[in-house]
């Protein structure tokens, strides 16, 4: 797994899914947690200063356990919404896990 910083989002492969988070500590923790929760997958990070795209190809998993570990404090996944103005792909929300994905 590698975390890639990408400038030109248009050149990326079209199957990327995952959250868009307002810049800050939460975004940093989400990048690390997504890397933890998607072993073997490359994590593409597009940093537009005010917002950060954090994406993997086809499916992107984020668990509460990884997020809290990387953030260093308890945070229910529902609270992710506070700093998530958008996300790419379909979404499935459960208490312990959010999953972004495409079916095809």
């Amino acid at each position, binding site marked *: 797994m590698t975390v890639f910083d990408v400038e030109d989002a248009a050149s990326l492969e079209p199957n990327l899914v995952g959250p868009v988070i307002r810049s800050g500590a939460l975004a940093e923790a989400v990048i690390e947690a997504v890397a933890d929760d998607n072993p073997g997958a490359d994590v593409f990070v597009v940093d537009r*200063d005010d*917002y950060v795209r954090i994406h993997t190809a086809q499916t992107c998993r984020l668990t509460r356990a990884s997020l809290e570990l990387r953030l260093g404090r308890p945070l229910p996944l529902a609270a992710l*919404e506070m700093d998530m103005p*958008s996300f790419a792909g*379909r979404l499935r*929300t459960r*208490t312990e896990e959010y999953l972004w994905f495409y079916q095809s």
Partner: protein
Amino acid sequence: MLLNRDDWYDISRDLDWTLSYVDEEVAFPQCWTGKRAIPDEAWQAWDEPFRVSYRDYVRVQREKESGVKAVGDAMLRAGVYQKLDPAHVAAAHLHMGTTCMVEYMAVTMQSRFCRFAPTPRWRNLGVFGMLDETRHTQLDLRFSHDLLRFDPRFDWAQKAFHTNEWGVLAVKNFFDDIMLSSDCVEAALATSLTVEHGFTNIQFVALAADAMAAGDVNWSNLLSSIQTDEARHAQQGFPTLQVLMEHDPQRAQQAIDVAFWRSTRLFQTLTGPAMDYYTPLDQRKMSFKEFMLEWVVNHHERILADYGLSKPWYWDKFLHSLENGHHAMHLGLWFWRPTLFWKPNAGVSKAEREWLNEKYPTWEENWGGYWDQIIANINAGRMDLTLPETLPALCNVTQLPLGSAMSRHDLEPAVSVYEGRTYQFDSDISKWCFDLDPARYAGHMNVVDRFIAGQIQPMSLAGGLEWMGLTPDVMGDDAYGYRWAAEYAPAMAD
């Protein structure tokens, strides 16, 4: 022990009752549900991507609110607004005047979901959407109220939709259609999916990034906080689309293709000029076209394909419009600046023009000549020639000027005759929208139709301005008082 949300959610969201005192059709009339021939059982497949409980909702929204309030108060104390670039602040005036009351219209639309949506799961989520949109209206009003002492244009957050300002009428026309008059199914396709999932990101996330770079922390933070609600409640559109793709895919495709074009035209009017002309050059993150490629072409279209939808039939024309439409709209907005309630920046200094040509290789060929003439008139002291004497002919669907959708070469008329009246359009795509459902648009008179019919008196530009509610304290003029044109003056050229 407290139950985990996942344990009780499936039961709670199906809470419904069997009607015994009234007929189903009376309690849930077709005209509001929009179910048509879709069987009742089909809605059992409606499964919301973004789960919400009232408990979580209140906790999260409370945090969002205190965050926005804290940032707003700090920025007010620091006097940030007074230090902003005058070109940039026009984007905030434009936003508050054209968007605040759309948020309020969205309250009504979400309330319709709460009451009439074809499944209790959706009705449940409509409650949160309704509270979200109430929050957005109130945030815009508070923001504008706080800044009213610095600029009377913020009064237009509340006032605009009670005037006949032509741009406001164009916005209102679209949202009257897809928010106030649409049944639940169509509103989900046109508003939740197309506007909220597709296009609002351009204004509330991408333009927010520009605004942050321009130092407008308060407005930027307000926009992206609003969009965190939009990202959640826009998801009401996807399970509805899923049901439609099973039972009536053609209706889904058509409703989305119409809304997609109308949204394109609207955001070319609101966001395009704000990004490519009003945002100071060194603070621009990307061009409007680049943001549209990121957010609409990639982010939004990819998920529609995942549900089995095709790109609109007019895709190539859309891409051509993406190169041109907002430049045409900007030129028109600036030229007809007395008809605006904000001060547009021309944005064509030599450095800005170089940037435009780099981002849009056909810019000079299409728009440079018009601006050269305007610049020559300014430098010759002939301000009268830079100002309009008449009004432009308007499209009977988008309400935007004819000739403002494509390049300057694409001017072939698009016309339909319906029940004896001739209707004109800004493109054959708008004509296609009209021809699909003429009764929906027919009879409406745009600003110029009313002018010609003698409803606006006196029949002069001054009469038009008065009718539009434009007073001298808010009337548009060049953001920098034409100082940018001096570098083109002959004396400076050599």
